[in-house]
């Protein structure tokens, strides 16, 4: 069981300096996430969900305490090492999709593989598979501006999973989507979690997302208020 733990934090603090005052965004967070989990950080705005997600994703570093992701200490990684970790092992899904506007759907999904220096034929195969997964194979040549919100988020999911990462971090993935699209997106991710055993971690306060989670970690004022396993999803 111990070997399957991908993420472990211990007494994690994150303090932002706001001029004369400090804001404690995370307060002694200790948790672990195992391979294949479908877990969410939930809580109101300002509770520290995104900050915790950013630290796990090595987009930020803790002020004190430790965060270990796939055996690597986030606080001691160099810029290059953390970029490598993100590129090969972590996929990101953002609230506002963050697709590269000048690239086509295909090129957006292909991008992480280009950074890995993967050869063309393998890239083509993986991008094709990812687009099939999210049901957008027929929109490969479209630009992000030509897509609906739901389609854009599905492209973002394809981009996150194309490199077959161990972890996918999704920050409010349904915040800009209507109910139907939200459920569609969540079903897609739940299916990927089932099929590929990819670990999904969400930061959300959207009940539609929360309904799909298998584990719910509630944050309040930067502290873990509750960590519960959900016995049965209420998807749909």
């Amino acid at each position, binding site marked *: 069981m111990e070997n399957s733990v991908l993420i472990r934090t211990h007494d994690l603090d994150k303090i932002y300096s706001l001029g004369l005052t400090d804001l404690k965004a995370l307060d002694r967070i200790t948790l672990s996430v195992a391979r294949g989990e479908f877990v969410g950080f939930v809580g109101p705005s300002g509770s520290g969900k995104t900050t915790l997600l*950013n630290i796990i994703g090595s*987009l*930020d570093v803790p002020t004190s305490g430790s965060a270990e992701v796939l055996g690597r200490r986030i606080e001691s990684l160099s810029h290059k090492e953390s*970029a490598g970790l*993100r590129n090969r092992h972590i996929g990101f899904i953002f609230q506002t999709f963050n697709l590269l506007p*000048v690239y086509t759907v295909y090129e957006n999904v292909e991008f*992480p593989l280009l*950074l890995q220096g993967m050869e063309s034929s393998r890239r083509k195969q993986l991008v094709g598979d990812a687009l099939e997964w999210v049901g957008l194979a027929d929109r490969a040549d479209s630009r992000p501006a030509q897509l609906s919100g739901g389609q854009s988020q599905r492209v973002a999911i394809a981009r996150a999973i194309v490199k077959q990462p161990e972890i996918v971090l999704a920050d409010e993935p349904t915040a800009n989507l209507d109910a139907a699209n939200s459920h569609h997106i969540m079903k897609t991710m739940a299916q990927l979690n089932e099929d590929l055993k990819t670990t999904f971690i969400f930061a959300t306060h959207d009940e539609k997302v929360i309904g799909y989670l298998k584990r719910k970690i509630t944050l309040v004022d930067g502290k873990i208020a509750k960590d519960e396993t959900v016995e049965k999803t209420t998807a749909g």
Partner: protein
Amino acid sequence: MLIPKLALRNILSAGLRTWLSVLALSFSFVAIIFLQGVYDGLNDQVERATVEAQYGGGQYWQKAYDPYDPLSLEDAHAPIPPQLQELTAGGGAAPILIRTATIYPQGRFRSILLKGIDPDQKVLSVPSTALRSLENVIPGLIGSRMAKSAGLKKGDVVTVQWRDVHGTFDARDVTIAEVFRTNVQDVDNDQIWIPLERLQAFTRMENQATIVVLKKDVLPVTDPPGWEFKDSGFLLRDLRSLVKMKSVQGSVMYLLLLFLAMLAIFDTQVLSIWRRRKEMGTLMALGMTRTQVIELFTMEGALHGVLAALVAAIYGIPLLAYAAGRGFDLPIATDNFGFAIGEKLFPAYSPALVAGTTLLVCIVTTIVSYLPTRKIADLKPADALRGRLS
């Protein structure tokens, strides 16, 4: 090759925004090359005209001759050495005897240089053949500036007074046989050309000269005793520094254009980095290092320079070729520049000028593109994703 590919894809996909920057930069390209071509053309033209009309392929100076000291002319004459006579006989050199003189046009007094030149010489572009036409009079040849300032015209008779080798005054009437136009003021202002043999006879300086001008491309002989050879480099020294001074003045415009173009690139880059900070965060989240992001944005800026060079080539080459072939008229005021400029100026565009300017603009564009991107080095991916710049 990933970064250049991505950079090219990014700027081509940016559409109108890219092409406006590229077009503005290409204008600077063409304008800078055009201006430099004008100065290079000016340089070429001035040197060519001065060599053809005045310096030839170099000059032998009688030892006492100093063009900056009119008093030196008194003693600046000597028999033409045999080897130079031989060159002259073969058409490879033209002796010139220079004496100070006084003329009295319309009763006024005026100091001039009286220059004797062989009417049949073909070394200088001065139209000396006009001095062959008059049999019973002393023919004189003057430039248009001299004609204007002295109020003389073709057919006028003017009294010229000089001193011979013994210092004795003598005077004759000279009939203006021709007024010629020249770009070279030093063969025009305050001087009258008359046949060499006549001047030698009047001054009792038979077979003597002050200078002997070599035909262009004729190799000089060993310096004869009492004579010194001055090559083109020496003779054109002052002219070149004068042209250089004018070119430096022109460089202000060059630098201004370059500055404006670079300001546009800098501005575009700063704006681009500000507007695309979330994109930078995304790129970092996807696994790009900060160095790669800096390289990408710098490369995008630099590619503006490359594209601008290509666009400039499309409309610039025909435009500059047309200007070089047709030349353009110069205003009369340019006569005051102090050196020989024709009525038309033909810009000269050498491959070195074009390649050098292209390289310079591309290098400066790259540097200017890089400067704002240094800010990315301090950027935290999480801040960038939130749309903040540290």
